[in-house]
């Protein structure tokens, strides 16, 4: 669906194309003269596309690994003798069945084949050789290595392009295909100029005797190849590319067309080859009852309606239970992802039912449900454990206080960035690649990858936008129990490990955040910098005892950096955000030492 602006762009490009087309369609005396010369020349030597000899193959050659078989020179590189004998058998086997323009199969793992054919050329010409390969490919033309690509892939037409200029005579084409494991094969076709038969026929008719149609056909064909119009043809090609780019940028409306549904059978013992199982039709697990009888095959829309029909309480129960977990740290039923027999029964079945019913009756209004939860007396309780009655509800099974639990990985990082003023809250756009220890991807393979860290604002984007490498997620995220994204995760673990402490103390992003927070404290904290710093992170004033600890920490850091300016500079230059030039490096380093402590506190990491 083009926007108005895109439509305008297209109209402008179409105008330009029309202008070029007019030039390309117009005969001029110069063009006419060139045409006559070309006709004469072509009649004297009609075009002759190269003649390809039959493919011959040598192999298999095997080796210890894919890279090795691709690189090893097994011999044909140094010259091909199609009559060569090995152990009394011919080395090169002819394959007349290997037609051009089709993929052909080879067999073997960690194996290479060499393919050879001759190319006879009557008149000098240029053209294009197209290849496909599974996996890697090397191509030599007349002994010169022209293409060398070590890739792992399946074979498809036209994966590689090789432009060639061939002089008259016999040429030798040698191709090496090497396979790692799995499928193995190649594709080939040649693309050379050939003149349409009808044009060729017209050339034999003297110009004066040609019919109008024939005359126009030859002139049009000539204009399509003459060097005189090469720049216009090039221009038209570029315009068409620009047009295609605009069209590609349209928002696309995707729709599928309904087809006859496939017959679905029970796969006995999970065997997908067994088509003797009972035929089944769409429905829901019988433990949940049944879809209403519609007298026809049920559709996805029927399933959606069933999910939310008022007398089906399950969807609402599951949803309000997950919502409850957001505000109270655990579900009313602890197993968020399993309401079946393997799940854990709710601690307050009546409450769950009440909320689910209210959710349905209230028109599935999420906002109203959130309001009901956060304005409840249960939500507004303190999370403190009663010192007077410690044995009362030790596991908070009765929600007798608010829950306290460690923040999720993303929140730990974002909170530090937010209080320090580094956080970039811009929405949308591509994922960010923040600081990450070197070499983390060394055990990734197929294909190997390198981590390219971002620069500038991208470094401080919300953690939601941090790049996820499945299984190899950012180590700081992993330390705080972010999932590896191999399967859907409804509820994360909340561990408490030494690795988390190492991240908090030493991860460059947290050191940089501490320095930025220290900068803010020095600028904005007035006479009460410690108090300011503490309360901006924890949203409460420090006690006298806490202030004393912080004062002592500050004094220790000040003493250390007073004696070592280089150390101070080293600390405050961690991270890509430049350290402010107007602050004393010693003081900033010492305050950074205080901010590191406050950002690492249990209270900082805990929702309570």
């Amino acid at each position, binding site marked *: 669906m083009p926007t108005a602006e895109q439509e305008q762009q297209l109209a402008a490009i179409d105008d330009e194309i029309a202008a070029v087309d007019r030039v390309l369609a117009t005969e001029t005396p110069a063009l006419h003269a060139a045409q006559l010369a070309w006709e004469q020349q072509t009649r004297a030597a009609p075009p002759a596309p190269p003649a390809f000899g039959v493919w011959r193959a040598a192999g298999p050659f*095997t*080796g*210890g*690994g*894919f890279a*090795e*078989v691709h690189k090893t020179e097994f011999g044909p590189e140094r010259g091909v003798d199609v009559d060569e004998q090995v152990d009394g058998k011919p080395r090169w086997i002819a394959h007349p069945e290997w037609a051009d323009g089709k993929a052909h199969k080879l067999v073997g*793992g960690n194996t290479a084949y060499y393919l050879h054919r001759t190319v006879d050329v009557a008149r000098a010409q240029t053209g294009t050789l197209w290849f496909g390969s599974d996996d890697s490919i090397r191509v030599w033309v007349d002994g010169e290595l022209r293409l060398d690509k070590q890739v792992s892939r399946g074979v498809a037409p036209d994966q590689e392009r090789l432009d060639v200029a061939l002089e008259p005579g016999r040429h030798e084409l040698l191709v090496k295909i090497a396979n*790692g*494991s799995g499928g193995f094969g190649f594709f080939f076709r040649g693309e050379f100029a050939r003149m349409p038969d009808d044009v060729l026929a017209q050339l034999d008719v003297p110009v004066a005797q040609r019919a109008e149609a024939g005359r126009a056909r030859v002139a049009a064909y000539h204009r399509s190849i003459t060097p005189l119009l090469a720049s216009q043809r090039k221009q038209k090609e570029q315009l068409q590319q620009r047009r295609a780019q605009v069209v590609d940028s349209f928002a696309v409306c995707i729709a599928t067309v309904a087809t006859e549904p496939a017959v679905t059978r029970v796969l006995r013992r999970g065997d997908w080859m067994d088509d003797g199982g009972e035929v089944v039709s769409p429905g829901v697990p019988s433990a949940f009852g049944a879809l209403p009888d519609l007298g026809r095959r049920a559709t996805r829309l029927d399933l959606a309606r069933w999910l939310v029909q008022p007398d089906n309480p399950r969807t609402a129960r599951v949803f309000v239970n997950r919502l409850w977990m957001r505000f109270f740290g655990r579900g009313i039923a602890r197993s968020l992802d399993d309401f079946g*027999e*393997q799940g854990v029964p709710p601690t307050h079945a009546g409450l769950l039912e009440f909320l689910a019913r209210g959710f349905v009756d209230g028109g599935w209004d999420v906002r109203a449900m959130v309001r009901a939860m956060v304005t409840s007396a249960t939500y507004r309780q303190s999370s403190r*454990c009663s*010192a007077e009655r*410690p*044995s009362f509800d*030790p596991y908070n099974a009765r929600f007798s206080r608010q829950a*306290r639990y*460690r923040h999720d990985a993303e929140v730990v990082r974002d909170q530090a960035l937010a209080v320090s003023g580094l956080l970039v809250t811009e929405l949308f756009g591509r994922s960010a690649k923040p600081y990450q220890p*070197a*070499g983390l991807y060394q*055990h990734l*393979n*197929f294909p190997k990858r390198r981590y390219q860290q971002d620069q500038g604002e991208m470094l401080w984007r919300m953690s939601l936008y941090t790049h996820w490498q499945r299984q190899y997620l950012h*180590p700081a995220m992993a330390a705080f129990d972010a999932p*590896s994204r*191999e*399967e859907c995760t409804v509820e994360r*673990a909340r*561990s*408490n*490990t*030494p*690795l988390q*402490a*190492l*991240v908090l*103390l*030493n991860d460059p992003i947290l*050191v940089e955040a501490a320095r930025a927070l220290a900068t803010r404290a020095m600028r904005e904290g007035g006479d009460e910098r410690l108090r300011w710093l503490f309360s901006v992170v924890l949203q409460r004033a420090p006690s006298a005892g806490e202030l004393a*600890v*912080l004062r002592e*920490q500050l004094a*220790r*850091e000040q003493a*250390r950096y007073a004696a070592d300016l280089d*150390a*101070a*500079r080293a600390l*405050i230059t*961690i991270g890509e955000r430049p350290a402010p030039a107007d602050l004393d490096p010693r003081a900033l*380093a010492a305050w950074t030492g205080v901010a*590191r*402590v406050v950002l*690492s*506190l*249990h*209270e900082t*990491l805990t929702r*309570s």
Partner: protein
Amino acid sequence: MDAFDALTRRSFLGGGVAGIGAIAARQLLGHLGAPREPARDRGVVSPRHHAPRAKRVIHLYMAGGPSHLETLDHKPKLRELHGQPMPESFTRGQPIAQLQGQRLTCLGPQHPFARFGESGQEICARFPHIGSVADELAIIRSMKTDQINHDPAHTLFNTGNTNPGRPSMGSWVTYGLGSECDDLPGFVVLTSVGKGGQAQPIAARQWSAGSLPSRFQGVEFRSKGDPVLYVQNPAGVSRAQQRGAVDAIAALNRLHDERVHDPEIATRIAQFEMAFRMQSSVPELADLGAEPQEVLDLYGVKGQDGSFASNCLLARRLAERGVRFVQVYHRAWDHHGGVKRAIDITADEVDRATAALITDLKRRGMLEDTLVMWGGEFGRTPMGQGNGRDHHIRGFSYFLAGGGVKGGVSHGATDELGYHAVEDVVHVRDLHATILHLLGIDHERLSVPFQGLDVRLTGVERARAIRQILA
């Protein structure tokens, strides 16, 4: 502080999954002392189900699937049939990986075998160092697994189940037995890459704690550079300053705890303390320069260079420091092509260091309570794949050493072509039962409830410890 607080704090520090009985027992221990004591798990199997023979495990994991036919299982008959069609009686109806639909031809053993030690155990002559410790080894030649591709086969080998999400054996063992170490994790993983085959990736899922608490998951130590990420202080921060920061954090956390009474805070303080200790213990651990030259030569190690040999030496240092379960993966054995040369290359990487580890443990008196395991997720076909071999699950080999295992014995056998394990067949779960047995755990009594099941490492099918190889 009142009794309840001390009690919960103690249970978090000490037990993890302490039951009521354990809490009561700890209550008798009285008030918790100085908070600089780091978290240490004592395990749920306390006391052990029976007297343990091993305290710890070093698993030399030959990832990719070593060919048993060029390592531990000599098949002269296969050499006789070299180049001839594989008899169909062996292969009919069997699962086959990449050789599916291809002509199956016997590939004779690509290296000679020899007899080693007083026990005369037959081992491929390309592994003379392993041969030199033959009298320490219990070689199992009748292993069997269910999974023919790398990742699911690893998952089965590590967790006893094909589906991801179950605890790996290192997690089970640390969960069961706890840790003996204040400054290193109980379950550590090391990896290296060989040059002789395709380096199949290994997913971190392989050492996941699955349904057990996440602190039991394996911690992957990087084999080059800092073994643990973020273990170095930020530039410009001295060790004394870091100590000061950790102390200030602990002091503030304690003040906070006085107000809110949160047992998790004690764990947090302990984990910062553990982290601080790791900051010196981990670099110290990785400093192989501290080893005498003679030891470096024994392993053939130049330095901490990420090689298998360097990881074997690290494994010994980890074991010495009380780490319960060490897995040393060597991603090198997927020899689909050119198995002869690939074995040459891989033997050079693995042979000396494997033997050195066993020798080194023995002379330190550690072999008697350290179980060393050597092998891969499956074996390789007697049929050639070109001049290599394909994945094979019906018969392969493993060896164990130390930790209450008899030395110089062989157990089980494959048929004359090395295809099917036919004598005293050992399924992966039998090996799991054996490992747990040696550690003093009855595999049927170590379980956790998960998805409505009492999940065990050995699963629900019958598993038996291999009595014949127990010393």
